[in-house]
């Protein structure tokens, strides 16, 4: 049995599909479990709202599941598409597509479970606000999905762009690095964005008069929380679209792989940390609305500082790509 390029591509596509769906199943399952747990608590608190809470739980879980559905789509494409095996680059491409989507679905899946659970609790606490809570939850969890969508975009670009004309040697590492950068990079931001949306749902139910500022600052906080996922996307775009000169040496290739890993893993911490910052800012605004302007400014400055480690990762990744 000879192992030609075609066989390797097939092997890698199957492995990539498994990775995509395997990792992709983690986040959404945890998130949906959290939602259901909170819904149970909410129904025990006010059984009369059981119908609304049940509806809210199902809608929230459906959104949390979308990250897993993205992973399912990528896994299906990897399993059922016949990839042409003309270059060993394709082996890396199909693997990276699976890695990017699988890892990228973890954070958003868990994250969007938080606001859905909080909305259920909120409905039991403040039944009159059910409608606004639902809207707030939908906006919050949709924004939470953005990092997973970035990972999906990277996977789609990898799968539907022709990389076979590139030299095999550094390109395989660049492609794998791109997958790691957007995959790992999405974890922290997805989780952090969920934390922000969760408190904003609590805030809406605690202080219905503050709905508008709470939703606005939630959006702002989530957007800034996603910054490191955007750096991950940026690095993976550079790795995908810059043509690297072919070389047989291992050093340039490992520098590109390291750039992807550096940006991806480095983005996890700031994403979660900025989520904590924005979460307490939103909470404080719901408690003391008069301080909204000061709280927003403090939140942004604090997030900028906690983001600095993400910027260090970005700098090192760019140095690895362009200088080393």
């Amino acid at each position, binding site marked *: 049995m000879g192992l030609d390029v075609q066989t390797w591509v097939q092997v890698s596509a199957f492995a990539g599909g498994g990775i995509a769906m395997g990792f992709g199943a983690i986040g959404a399952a945890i998130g949906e479990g959290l939602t259901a747990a909170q819904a149970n608590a909410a129904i025990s608190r006010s059984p009369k709202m059981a119908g609304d809470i049940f509806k809210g739980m199902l809608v929230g879980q459906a959104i949390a599941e979308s990250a897993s559905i993205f992973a399912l789509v990528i896994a299906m*494409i990897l399993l059922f598409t016949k990839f042409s095996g003309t270059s060993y680059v394709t082996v890396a491409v199909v693997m990276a597509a699976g890695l990017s989507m699988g890892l990228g679905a973890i954070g958003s899946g868990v994250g969007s479970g938080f606001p859905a659970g909080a909305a259920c609790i909120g409905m039991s606490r403040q039944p009159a606000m059910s409608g606004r809570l639902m809207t707030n939850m939908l*906006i919050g969890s*949709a*924004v939470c999905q*953005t990092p997973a*969508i*970035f990972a*999906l*975009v990277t996977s*789609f*670009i990898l799968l*539907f*762009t022709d990389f076979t004309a590139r030299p095999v040697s550094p390109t395989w590492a660049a492609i794998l690095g791109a997958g790691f950068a957007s995959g790992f990079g999405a974890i922290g931001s997805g989780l952090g964005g969920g934390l922000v949306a969760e408190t904003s749902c609590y805030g809406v139910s605690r202080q219905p008069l503050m709905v508008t*500022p709470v939703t*606005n600052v939630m*959006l*702002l906080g989530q*957007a*800034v929380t*996603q*910054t490191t996922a*955007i*750096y991950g*996307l*940026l690095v993976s775009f550079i790795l995908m679209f810059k043509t690297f000169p072919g070389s047989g040496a291992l050093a340039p290739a490992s520098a590109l792989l390291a750039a992807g890993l550096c940006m991806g893993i480095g983005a996890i911490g700031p994403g979660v940390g900025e989520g904590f910052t924005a979460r307490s800012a939103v909470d404080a605004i719901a408690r003391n609305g008069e301080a*909204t*302007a000061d709280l*927003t*400014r403090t939140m*942004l*400055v604090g997030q*900028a500082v906690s*983001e*600095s480690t993400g*910027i260090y990762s*970005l*700098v090192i990744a760019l140095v690895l790509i362009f200088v080393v």
Partner: protein
Amino acid sequence: MEELGRVYQLIVPMFGRDMTFNLDVIVMTWLVIAVLLLFGYLASRRRSRLPGPLQAVGELFVSQLYGLTEDALDEEMVKTYGPLICALFMFLLLSNWFGIIPHLGEPTKDLNTPLSLGIMGFFIAHYAGIKAKGLKAYLKQYFEPMFFMMPLNVIGELAKVVSISFRLFGNIMGGSIIILVVSYLTYSVILPPFLNAFFGLFVGTIQAFVFTMLTVVYISVQVK
């Protein structure tokens, strides 16, 4: 499927260099501007105390965005920056919605549009900062908390431009790629209208709002 990542470019050699124009983006941007101008003309044509539908929509935009600007900046600055913020939001909103009409594309799908708006916001914010605090206090903030933090502070400021423009670009371009690929996979049956509604209308509105709010907040961080 070949449409993925294809850009129609006009390349003009000038002074020994090639000037590249992305024709689609230029045409779409002018279309957006034309629609906005038409809206502005029609909304303010017959002004009355009992507003017509268009005037009501226009007033809604202006009052809401002026309110948001006032929350972040002082009352005096609203007169200076309010019109800018209004124009920015309306331009972005219409740009992001443009893709749901067949044969039209979002100008924000191309990195040039968000990046130029981000750079514009960056310069306006820093100009406002220098004007409000004076050059000395403005420069001093880069040397805090320690003087050797200066390079990182500068990189942090530049990273803001990258993040604000890539956030918009990534969302809008990502949405359009997803719509393209899913339409191709499902032979344009059932799913694409819902995807258009989600990525075009919903995500487009949120991202236009986020970009506008961040621009306001960047100005307010520099000013205070």
